[in-house]
């Protein structure tokens, strides 16, 4: 694996960790509003964080190839 892919692998792992972490936090914070709402909210937060880091990766890969 080239070092460019190592950078992407690192960002991928960061995105998974952060999206799971913030997904759980969102679930716990919104649980009082109802479980369905909490699940949807945590999925939305997880997806947003994952997409944000994927976009960051896309920008970084533009520089490093």
């Amino acid at each position, binding site marked *: *694996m*080239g*070092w460019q*892919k190592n950078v*992407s*692998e690192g*960002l*991928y792992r960061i*995105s*998974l960790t952060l999206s799971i972490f913030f997904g759980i936090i969102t679930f716990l914070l919104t649980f009082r509003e109802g479980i369905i709402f909490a699940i949807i909210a945590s999925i939305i937060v997880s997806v947003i964080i*994952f997409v944000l880091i*994927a976009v960051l*990766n896309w920008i970084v*890969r533009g520089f490093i190839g």
Partner: protein
Amino acid sequence: MLNHFNILENAITELGKILRLNAQYFGLSNENIHELEPIVQGTMQAYELTLSQAENININSLRKLQQSQHLGLCANKIFVNEYQNFHKDLNTEKIDTFKKKIDFDFSDLNPQAIYLAFLAQVALLIAIENGLEQLKDKLILEKNKWYQQKFLNYVSKFINKICNNEYKSSEIASLINPSLQTMMANFTLFEINKDQSFMSDLEKINQGFDLDYSLKDKNSDSILRKFFKI
């Protein structure tokens, strides 16, 4: 009863078939076919030498030979047609950079000779795999595809590491060989030897065990990985 001679005979027959198919490329005709005789003699000696690595012809010894032939073929495949994309992490630019960084005179190489040596190795591999079929070994084709994919990954890893200057020249110096085929096989083996888990898989196959040869991407997160170009 299968023996060394049967395999050798079969390999020469296969080589004949392959050369007939590639007669136009090598410029072969009825008039100049005799010029091939010294090459065929040399190839036969190389076959004998390879087959002599197996004391007896049985499933395990043929599996070992099949493995080493695939390794040799993958290691040299990139030189047969450098413009073909054999691996997602390899391209012509990388192969050119690799050639510049290795202390080996690639300019002296004759493309026809490289192709002929490659075809000779293919012919021996066909004979070995036919032998395995006769001995009723299982999953020969699956192993064939598995080896090609796995070994090519190590060839690619090595070439990429050379391009990225990840090796010290002292590490590489001992692997350089006047024969391109041997040198490339040395490089690939050097990379494989670092992966103990893959080495143990190869050993298991040689002892007659079979692995899961399916080439499906086993990462459950492979779809997510695509967003990151991994």
